[in-house]
């Protein structure tokens, strides 16, 4: 039997003259279709319109497409909750509570992402449909990963998810860092994809199928005695997912990519990549490999511990907010892994809840970072935030809520998300892991609060001093580099010099300058760089709407968590 025939299992197919045709249930993939169709429509409109349309038009359209797909997803959710889960498109797509949650979540991310992107692209005067089109494609990929019931489809989703993200990372053509981020992300992403495909191949070799359900039932009915190939396949699959969710030690791309990419794109990619990857990971582990639990649990245990600790520890020493948030997102990935590692439905529920909370938080946070970064998207040193509460109280207030939620403060969704994963972990008797998680949460609180204190604490001096007092925090810079820059801090700074210093600092912090070039850059960068003035801190109404949604959700559902908890609970309904 050919692989094609194995894929298209006969029960759901029409046989026509020896060729089996899949029955396609279009409602089951309606959210994806809406996103992709909408994307094509946007592309077409942008192509035939005689003049450049303002970015708001695209943002509105994207949000509309997102809402349409949200509605379609909710319809599916309703169907599933009422009529039970079902399998569609030749059993390659599963529509169950779990998949619909991913669909709903992706739709929400598209909508929120459109708001934040609109404000950013408007300020940066970037025209064109590309950002929105890429976001739509990427989200549809994540949806596909969440509802895929076949390893091939998971891989397809993974690629549809990733490739637009590579491009989005490099969308800011004015900054070399952006291109560098895209390149790094692409190279490593391609590498991990290769590993993932190899994992699929090995799994197929061991079980004779790529269909997740078939593999699951095969493993349930047969004992694979020489299971080296199978376990190897599982391990490689885990590596592929680990890369996407930025689990240590597959996280290395994260700080560089997050620091280099355009800021709203970071929020979007952080959210959507984690949704897709965790969605698929949960399904693969829970419905396909539950029998191998004793093998994957220790792996995830180790990954989670490394991820939790490294994310928290390295974030502490960052001075660049985007890098700090990158490590914080690594830390969050560790928390979500906690729920996965538990291997119980309670753990899955906790992970899904966390995923939801995290997506909203990370989008909102990076939305604020994009605003504070100022024109040119360069001002991401923590000193930019000093005294922000005095200048932009509402903005700083929103940021504070989002950061506190990330830290897990009570009366925010962040509190419950951490509580539930740790609870699930304890219920699964992973005491050491839960302890490490709590420790890392305590460490993580430090750097969130540092930013909050910076915003609400001291008042910033003149704008000129904004970028000055930065210790070179370069990961890329060799240790000796610290010695090169103290003069910068003492310069009687005019705005130009100050921002040049800020840029330099950023460049080192971002680890993007290779050590040899750092010195040349230091010499060459004495003329005007992009000036980041306070006047730049304009918040577009789009961003306000997005922020209001994020903060509102965080606080309201933090005080009244039951709707979201119930949502996550019902979502554990697996096919």
């Amino acid at each position: 039997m050919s692989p094609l025939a194995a894929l298209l299992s006969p029960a759901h197919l029409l046989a026509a003259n020896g060729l089996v045709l899949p029955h396609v249930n279009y409602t089951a993939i309606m959210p994806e279709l809406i996103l992709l169709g909408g994307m094509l429509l946007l592309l077409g409109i942008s192509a035939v319109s005689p003049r450049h349309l303002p970015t708001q038009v695209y943002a509105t359209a994207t949000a509309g497409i997102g809402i349409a797909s949200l509605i379609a997803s909710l319809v599916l959710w309703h169907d599933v909750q009422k009529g039970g889960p079902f399998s569609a498109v030749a059993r390659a797509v599963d529509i169950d509570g779990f998949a619909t949650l991913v669909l709903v979540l992706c739709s929400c991310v598209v909508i929120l992402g459109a708001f934040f992107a609109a404000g950013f692209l408007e300020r940066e005067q970037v025209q064109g449909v590309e950002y929105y089109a890429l976001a739509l494609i990427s989200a549809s990929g994540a949806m596909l990963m969440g509802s895929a019931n076949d390893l091939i489809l998971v891989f397809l989703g993974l690629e549809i998810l990733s490739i637009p993200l590579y491009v989005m990372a490099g969308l800011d053509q004015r900054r070399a860092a952006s291109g560098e981020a895209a390149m790094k992300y692409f190279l490593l992403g391609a590498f991990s994809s290769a590993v993932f495909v190899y994992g699929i191949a090995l799994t197929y070799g061991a079980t004779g199928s790529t269909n997740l359900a078939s593999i699951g039932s095969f493993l349930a009915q047969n004992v694979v005695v020489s299971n080296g190939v199978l376990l190897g396949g599982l391990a490689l699959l885990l590596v592929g997912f680990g890369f996407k969710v930025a689990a240590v030690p597959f996280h290395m791309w994260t700080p560089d990519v997050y620091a280099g990419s355009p800021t709203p794109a970071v929020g979007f990619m952080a959210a959507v990549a984690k949704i897709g990857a965790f969605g698929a990971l949960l399904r693969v582990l829970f419905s396909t490999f539950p029998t191998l639990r004793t093998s994957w649990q220790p792996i995830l245990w180790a990954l989670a511990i490394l991820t939790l600790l490294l994310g928290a520890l390295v974030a502490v020493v960052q001075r660049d907010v985007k890098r700090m948030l990158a490590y914080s997102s690594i830390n969050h990935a560790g928390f979500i892994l906690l729920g996965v590692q538990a291997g119980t439905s309670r753990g899955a529920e906790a992970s899904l809840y966390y995923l939801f909370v995290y997506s909203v938080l990370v989008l909102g946070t990076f939305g604020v970072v994009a605003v504070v970064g100022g024109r040119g998207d360069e001002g991401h040193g923590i000193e930019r935030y000093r005294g922000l509460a005095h200048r932009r109280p509402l903005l700083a207030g929103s940021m504070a809520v989002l950061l506190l939620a990330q830290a897990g403060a009570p009366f925010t969704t962040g509190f419950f998300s951490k509580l539930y994963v740790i609870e699930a972990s304890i219920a699964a008797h992973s005491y050491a892991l839960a302890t490490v998680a709590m420790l890392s949460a305590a460490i993580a609180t430090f750097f969130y609060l540092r930013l909050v204190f910076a915003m609400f604490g001291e008042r910033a001096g003149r704008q000129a001093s904004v970028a000055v007092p930065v210790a070179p925090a370069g990961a890329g810079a060799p240790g000796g580099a610290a010695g090169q820059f103290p003069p910068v801090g003492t310069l009687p700074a005019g705005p130009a010099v100050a921002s040049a210093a800020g840029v330099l600092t950023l460049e080192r912090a971002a680890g993007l300058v290779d050590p040899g070039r750092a010195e040349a850059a230091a010499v060459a960068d004495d003329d005007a760089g992009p000036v980041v003035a306070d006047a730049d801190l304009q918040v577009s109404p789009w961003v306000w709407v997005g922020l209001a949604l994020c903060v509102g959700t965080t606080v309201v559902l933090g005080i009244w968590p039951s709707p979201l908890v119930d949502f996550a609970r019902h979502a554990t309904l697996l096919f």
Partner: protein
Amino acid sequence: MGSLDSYLPILFLFVLAFGFTAFSLAASKLLAPQRPTAAKEAPYECGIVPSHEPPQRFPVRFYLVSMIFVIFDIEVIFLFPWAVVYGQLGRFGLVEIIVFAAAVFFSFVYLVSNGALDWGPLKRVQRVVRPIGGRTSQSTVRRIGSSSDEAA
């Protein structure tokens, strides 16, 4: 080992290809007379001596065109097998291939509108990115086309 039987022709193909190449090279080495001259050793045997190394930069446009070509290539690769079994696929196949072709077509329209097939001096740039004067943030290399004095 039975399951590997079906791969035997491929192995045979490999052996054949390798054998043929090896045979050709060896034959030319053994049979052909070896009398090198300076003209024969030159990179181009047209008789004109190159005065400098060939340029290393290609306009990006070359890559764009080649990628568009690849896209259509892929479309054709899909279309051939589809055409072969068109009769059996019926309406389902028709719908699917129309969807596929539409997607490709939209992308193509987008590319054309973006000036991907325009040749010669730039007439229209779809994405207007306001350049920041001077140099880019991360690089000491002046970016071609971005600084004001070099704007096309």
